[in-house]
């Protein structure tokens, strides 16, 4: 069996969620990786170094820049005859493209798998992770998105795959990229960070998120948020952790002024260690927290900063 993984990359290399998708694909058979866009040589080289990748396919044409769903799906459908499994990470890009691929192949996609049982059976969360469903696909090909937090990513070095350009089919032109407004941050990406510190409605304003900054600096943490904090405009949308935001599973997750709604827990309850700081001792977040501090965050955060600086 051979699996094809659609990779996402930036100037720093292959993104961590995609490396987790490669790890999932390794459980299915031989792994090939696909790099698409224009000016992708460096990315293709980075892909070739991923351990476990046997071959890298490149599609080096401008219409594939930004991986818009319509052309990217057409490319994958063209390659599909050679593969039993087509995978991508459960990211905005993967979620946008893979179901489109599946429909064109007349198969039911298997979204956000957390475990590979065998080549046609997978475990995936349903109802905000309140159930883990084992599903078996009867389709001849499986189109899959991979919950990155559930698979340890493959390393960035160690492999030496061959790189092979593919014949790019006619690509549909019914959508056009206009612009991107990306949050700039020196911090690690939320889904890749070893430590995440998130603020909720209790933070009261975007300005108060500055209280999290020195702590994040000290811990090398990414900053996240609850939906309420995003909806209130405290922080941009890409900070949202949860069922319908980002799924994270860091070594340490610190929830500050977050009540712990099921939709939020769905995005962080697989973290190794959870800390909650909340002034309401009844807040549901304490039911999942390894360490709970009942305190006013406006007092606790400056103290935490000092305590970390001291040590």
């Amino acid at each position, binding site marked *: 069996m051979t699996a094809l993984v659609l990779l996402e990359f930036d100037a720093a290399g292959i993104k961590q969620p995609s490396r987790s998708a490669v790890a999932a694909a390794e459980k299915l058979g031989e792994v090939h990786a696909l790099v698409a866009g224009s000016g992708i040589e460096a990315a293709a080289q980075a892909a070739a170094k991923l351990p476990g990748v046997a071959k890298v396919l490149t599609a080096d044409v401008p219409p594939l820049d930004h991986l818009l*769903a319509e052309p990217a799906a057409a490319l994958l459908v063209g390659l599909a005859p050679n593969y039993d499994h087509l995978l991508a990470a459960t990211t905005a890009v993967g979620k946008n493209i893979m179901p489109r691929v599946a429909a064109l192949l007349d198969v039911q996609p298997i979204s956000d798998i957390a475990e590979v049982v065998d080549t046609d059976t997978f475990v995936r969360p*349903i109802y905000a992770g309140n159930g883990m469903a084992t599903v078996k696909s009867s389709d001849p090909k499986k189109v899959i998105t991979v919950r990155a937090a559930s698979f340890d990513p493959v390393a960035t070095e160690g492999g030496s795959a061959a790189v092979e350009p593919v014949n790019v089919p006619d690509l549909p032109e019914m959508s056009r990229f206009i612009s991107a407004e990306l949050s700039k941050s020196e911090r690690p990406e939320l889904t890749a960070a070893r430590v995440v510190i998130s603020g909720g409605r209790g933070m009261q304003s975007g300005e108060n998120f500055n209280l999290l900054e020195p702590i994040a600096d000290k811990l090398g943490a990414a900053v996240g948020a609850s939906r309420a904090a995003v909806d209130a405009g405290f922080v941009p949308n890409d900070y949202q952790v949860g069922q319908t935001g980002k799924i994270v599973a860091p070594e340490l997750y610190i929830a500050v002024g977050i009540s712990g709604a099921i939709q939020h827990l769905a995005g962080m309850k697989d973290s190794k260690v959870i800390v909650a700081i909340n002034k309401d001792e009844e807040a549901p977040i304490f039911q999942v927290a390894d360490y709970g501090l009942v305190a006013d965050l406006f007092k606790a955060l400056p103290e935490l900063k000092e305590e970390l600086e001291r040590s």
Partner: protein
Amino acid sequence: MKILVPVKRVVDYNVKVRVKADGTGIETAGVKMSMNPFDEIGVEEAVRLKEKGAATEIVAVSMGVPQCAETIRTALAMGADRGILVETDAELQPLAVAKLLKAIAEKEQPKLIILGKQAIDDDMNATGQMLAALLGWPQGTFASKITIEGDGITVTREVDGGLETVALTLPAIITTDLRLNEPRYASLPNIMKARKKPIDNLKPADLGVDPKPRLTTVKVAEPPKRKAGVKVGSVAELVEKLKTEAKVI
């Protein structure tokens, strides 16, 4: 311009669901059901487009058990004009829903179909993209802002790094994200008016679609439970424990 809005009947988002003891699924008996929250956002957006004069008719579609008619009524009370119920007791997976919606779209000829990005029960996040593929239409998923101009639509999308704006030609598919709008509550007079709005009743066979699921659920298990933690008395104690006990800092 006609807009089609698929609305799914799901377990209300406030319900803490439980896995059935026999592991065959989620306990839904006697549980409060509501319209999928992302679909409320879809209906709201369609109604706003109609109020602005950009849309002429809004058709709400729901598929599943007969009670999905209630979900359609909710959409009608929010401002949709008529409904289509595709009634079946069979389990419907996104591929089947997309095929049924395609058949309806071919009959109704809408210019825009607004779906939710994700149903909060199956968490598939697939149907809109699949429908776009089957119709050969462009897709603007995870939308936080849409602007219709002539024969095109500009969509601002919530992506992992922030926001992305794309331009699509109509007809097109949109899937809603949380920040697209804040759905209204239906007023009592509008709830009364909605009772008189028509709902067509169809079966999958009327649309020539075999809705057979492609995924079989082998079992549903409880997620691993976290063991209860401890409360710490001070920030100093917290830092101490993170260092020496949890060893994460």
